């Protein structure tokens, strides 16, 4: 049998095995013959002693194949490690290239990882409850009453358990400093729905939902630790938690660490309290904020949604006046996670896509750098190829070098992301849900790894394959710097530049649209003058401040605040503009007929104290403001906003007309005030009514004091003193300026804008660097050409024009492609754009100017070098 280099793998192994076995058998036969056996007998005996030759051969082949694979892997790894060592040495020799490449990648990967961390926290991470994927939010409308939420909880076959959830401010007194606590008001099923058991004590019982028995409370772990020092003896104690129907409550348990509501956390949990058997039509507790249920095994959200809809139809036919068609149409169920995440899911994916573009631009730069570097090493590579280095080996060498850059860029990028997130403080500035915990987790690490690997393939593979092109061998003979093959590389350079500029254009357009929207939003007239207004939320305990004492307290406080130096206005309102709470009440306006089969329309409802409109500079359009004379004694009065006035009486004056709250409580309209954007600037003002607090006997509200003064912030301490002086047992929940409340309401938009602007700037920077790099390289490569032209009489401006065009043309193409893509991509931003369409010509025009300016600058600098080309020196250089 012959063995030659042409034999491959398995054949060669097979041959070696055959040789070895034959050597054994022949040797044995010789031995046995030497011992005196005849050849035939010796042969038989040798075979017999050997056993089944075929089986042994097969076994050997299997063993060798496995070990061959192993060896090959080991050799590859060794080879790769050797290449990495060589690569590291080579990178050390060109520190400028290395630093620029690693930093570029670090920026791209860092921004991507930071963005992904936010997306992961908000969208991908499951909610922190066992089996949280089976939680659904039912009928995502607000303002259920308790009875209705219970109907929903029991009337849906696919829902195993459901609970209403609401938040209520309760005041804790008698345990040191009075404090306003957020109570999670829930049904008994809450604990089954969220799969939580108390760490200590027990949960509510069914009997404890009766108003007479509902004076029980569970403490949050945090409150138990900070306020009660983690003392288990707190169970069974009766504490002064005033509000929501009781002055004191018995502590029956402590919730486990780490469990809480989504959004604003609760300090305590109390049961919804309603006389059992109350039909929902006569339940006046319209404050169940949401109903959350747990699906039975095998149910889907879609099925629950259908059940909710048919239940709503049933309830409407049973009690038409309590439901309108809109409510029935809106009846549905969505996954609880979706309801918590809200509408930001798509937005965050859009931002991730945007940062992906930044990373692509960064990879484009690296690819360009690498192409230039490869071009510089062409002779070296050609020598290696000529000396027999395989194409695979050349690719591997290139990739090894790139791997070092990708790994260090990736690692530094992750680090940069951590620093960025730490510095930015996403939870505080973004207004996004679930951003409190941005810890590194497996998903983020996996993402970082994949992104680094993808970058490596993107920027490393193409130049590596080019480097290994067989034509390189010709370079050895041609010897010229400007060899013809370079043109292929240059075409690639230009393509990359065009792509980079296109992506930068898309990002800059997105950023421009967001800036434009934000500026427009900022210029919206809020309806009040938020500057120089301090807002203080105080919560007088309901058991000691009820009815007239409650109003009296506010009157005393406002009176005293008015006397503070510099104060120009003082008032109070129970729901400050630009915050999320809302009260909305049904009404029947003068001239409207009550139809028992149709639900009454609703309008926003606010209680105020005299002086409020002055303090926030909300203009009085007609009629008069409320005054001290509008006392508890009737007639009841109200002011309405301009939108409400326009809605109700488009032609006549509203002053003097009567609006009946809930269809029964008459209030005479005494004036019309200007509109305020209650929630945030991007939502149109809604119809709103303002009633003097003194005339509102139903209670249940906590008022927010507003103080107008130049440099109102400086008054905070003095105002606190006044309040504590008049009501030592009245906790102060919140002190902030009205302008900061306004700012907070814009937080999410501002965050998105800032993120996109940051990405846009990064894209411009990287894109500019990309154009500059490629231009420098192109000009460098064509210097002899320019020299010849100048030697032939071309002027330096001719040469410069030629050089400029070679860099500028791809940039121009990039801008054109980018604009087209931007028109398409910016639709993704439609939900967060304000007052402008995704295709906004002035913005696009500005983007074009900026991009072209960057491209021009980046091309001009290297082009100057071309213009200075000295004909003689370039001609001599080769």
């Amino acid at each position, binding site marked *: 049998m012959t063995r030659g280099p042409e034999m491959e793998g398995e054949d060669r192994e097979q041959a070696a095995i055959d040789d*070895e076995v034959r050597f054994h058998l022949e040797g044995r036969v010789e031995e046995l013959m030497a011992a005196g056996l005849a050849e035939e007998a010796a042969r038989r005996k040798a075979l017999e002693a050997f056993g089944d030759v075929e*089986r042994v051969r097969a076994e050997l082949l299997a063993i060798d194949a496995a070990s061959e694979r192993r060896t090959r892997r080991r050799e590859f790894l060794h080879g790769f490690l050797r290449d990495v060592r060589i690569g590291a040495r080579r990178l050390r020799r060109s520190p400028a290239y290395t630093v620029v490449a690693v930093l570029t990648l670090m920026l791209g990967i860092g921004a991507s990882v930071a963005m992904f961390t936010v997306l992961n926290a908000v969208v991908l991470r499951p909610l922190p409850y066992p089996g949280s994927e089976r939680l659904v939010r039912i009928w995502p409308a607000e303002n259920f009453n308790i009875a209705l939420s219970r109907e929903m909880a029991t009337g849906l076959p696919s829902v195993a358990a459901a609970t209403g959830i609401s938040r209520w401010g309760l005041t804790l007194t008698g345990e040191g400093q009075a404090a306003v606590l957020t109570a999670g008001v829930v049904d008994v099923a809450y604990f089954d729905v969220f799969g939580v058991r108390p760490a200590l004590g027990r949960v509510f019982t069914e009997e404890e939902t009766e108003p007479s028995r509902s004076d029980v409370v569970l403490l949050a772990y945090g409150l138990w630790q900070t306020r009660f020092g983690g003392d288990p003896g707190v169970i069974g104690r009766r504490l002064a938690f005033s509000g929501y129907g009781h002055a004191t409550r018995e502590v029956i348990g402590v919730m486990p660490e780490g469990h809480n509501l989504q959004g604003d956390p609760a300090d305590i949990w109390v049961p919804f309290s309603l006389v059992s058997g109350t039909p929902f039509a006569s339940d006046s507790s319209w404050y169940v904020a949401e109903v959350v249920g747990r699906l039975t095994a095998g149910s889907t959200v879609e099925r629950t949604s259908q059940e909710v809809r048919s239940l709503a139809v049933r309830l409407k036919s049973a009690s038409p006046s309590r439901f309108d068609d809109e409510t029935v149409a809106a009846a549905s169920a969505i996954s609880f996670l979706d309801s918590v995440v809200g509408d930001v899911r798509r937005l965050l994916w859009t931002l991730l896509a945007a940062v992906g573009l930044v990373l692509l631009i960064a990879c484009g730069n690296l690819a360009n750098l690498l192409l230039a570097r490869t071009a510089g090493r062409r002779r070296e590579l050609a020598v290696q190829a000529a000396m027999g280095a395989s194409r695979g080996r050349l690719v591997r060498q290139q990739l090894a070098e790139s791997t070092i850059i990708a790994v260090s860029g990736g690692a530094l990028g992750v680090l940069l992301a951590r620093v960025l997130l730490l510095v930015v403080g996403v939870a505080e500035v973004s207004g996004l849900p679930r951003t409190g915990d941005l810890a590194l987790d497996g998903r983020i690490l996996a993402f970082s790894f994949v992104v680094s690997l993808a970058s490596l393939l993107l920027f490393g593979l193409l130049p590596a394959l080019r480097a290994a092109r067989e034509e390189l061998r010709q370079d050895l003979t041609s010897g010229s710097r400007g060899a013809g093959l370079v043109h292929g590389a240059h075409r690639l350079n230009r393509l990359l530049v065009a792509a980079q500029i296109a992506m930068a254009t898309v990002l800059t357009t997105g950023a421009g649209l967001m800036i434009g929207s934000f500026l427009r939003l900022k210029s919206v007239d809020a309806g009040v003058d938020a500057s120089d207004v301090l807002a203080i939320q105080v919560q007088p305990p309901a058991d000691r401040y009820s009815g007239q004492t409650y109003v009296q307290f506010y009157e005393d406080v406002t009176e005293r605040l008015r006397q503070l130096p510099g104060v120009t206005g003082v008032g109070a309102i129970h729901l400050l503009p630009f915050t999320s709470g809302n009260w909305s009440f049904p009404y029947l306006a003068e001239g409207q007929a009550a139809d028992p089969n149709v639900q009454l329309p609703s309008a926003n409802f606010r209680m105020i104290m005299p002086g409020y409109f002055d303090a926030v500079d909300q203009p009085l359009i007609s009629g008069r403001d409320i005054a001290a004379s509008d006392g508890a004694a009737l007639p009841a009065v109200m002011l309405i906003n301009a939108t409400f006035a326009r809605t109700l009486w488009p032609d006549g004056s509203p002053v003097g007309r009567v609006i009946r709250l809930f269809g029964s409580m008459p209030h005479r309209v005494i004036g019309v005030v200007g509109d305020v954007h209650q929630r945030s600037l991007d939502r149109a003002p809604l119809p709103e009514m303002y009633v003097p607090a003194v005339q509102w006997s139903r209670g249940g509200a906590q008022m927010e004091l507003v103080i107008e003064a130049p440099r109102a912030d400086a008054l905070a301490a003095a105002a606190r003193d006044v309040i504590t002086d008049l009501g030592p047992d009245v906790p102060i929940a919140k002190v902030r300026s009205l302008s900061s409340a306004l700012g907070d309401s814009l937080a999410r938009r501002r965050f998105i804008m800032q993120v996109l602007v940051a990405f846009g700037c990064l894209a411009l920077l990287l894109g500019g660097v990309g154009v500059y790099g490629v231009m420098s390289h192109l000009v460098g490569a064509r210097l002899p050409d320019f020299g010849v032209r100048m030697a032939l009489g071309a002027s330096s401006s001719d040469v410069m024009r030629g050089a400029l065009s070679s860099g500028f043309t791809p940039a121009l193409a990039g801008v054109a492609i980018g604009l087209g893509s931007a028109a398409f991509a910016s639709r993704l931003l439609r939900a967060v754009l304000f007052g402008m369409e995704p295709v906004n010509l002035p913005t696009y025009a500005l983007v074009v100017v900026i991009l072209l300016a960057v491209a021009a600058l980046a091309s001009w600098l290297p082009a100057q070098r071309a213009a200075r080309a000295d004909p003689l020196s370039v001609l001599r250089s080769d």
Partner: protein
Amino acid sequence: MTHIEARTLYGTLNLLLLRTLEGGELHGLDIRRRIAELAGDALKIEEGALYPALHRLERDGLVESAWGVSERKRRAKFYRLTVKGRRRLKREMASWKEHVRAVARVVLGPGEAL
């Protein structure tokens, strides 16, 4: 003596092979002869089983092989211990001796010796 199948002696066979190679490099035929000479008929090993065992040892990096020329001027594959194989042999010998002593103590009882 009971006839023992080579296969049930797999572990022992490995030890034998390593031990045989301790003195220097040998080809398969030599290895067979060395074992046969030392053990006589007490250990009857199917000759064909030697090679898979050797190849496995090679796969595991305990022995390495090279083609060379035998004393009769034939092309033969020679095996020798690697550093790793030598270390392994030392360890296996120690544990084998331990094992034999333990068995001997039980089988022979106190006072008797091998």
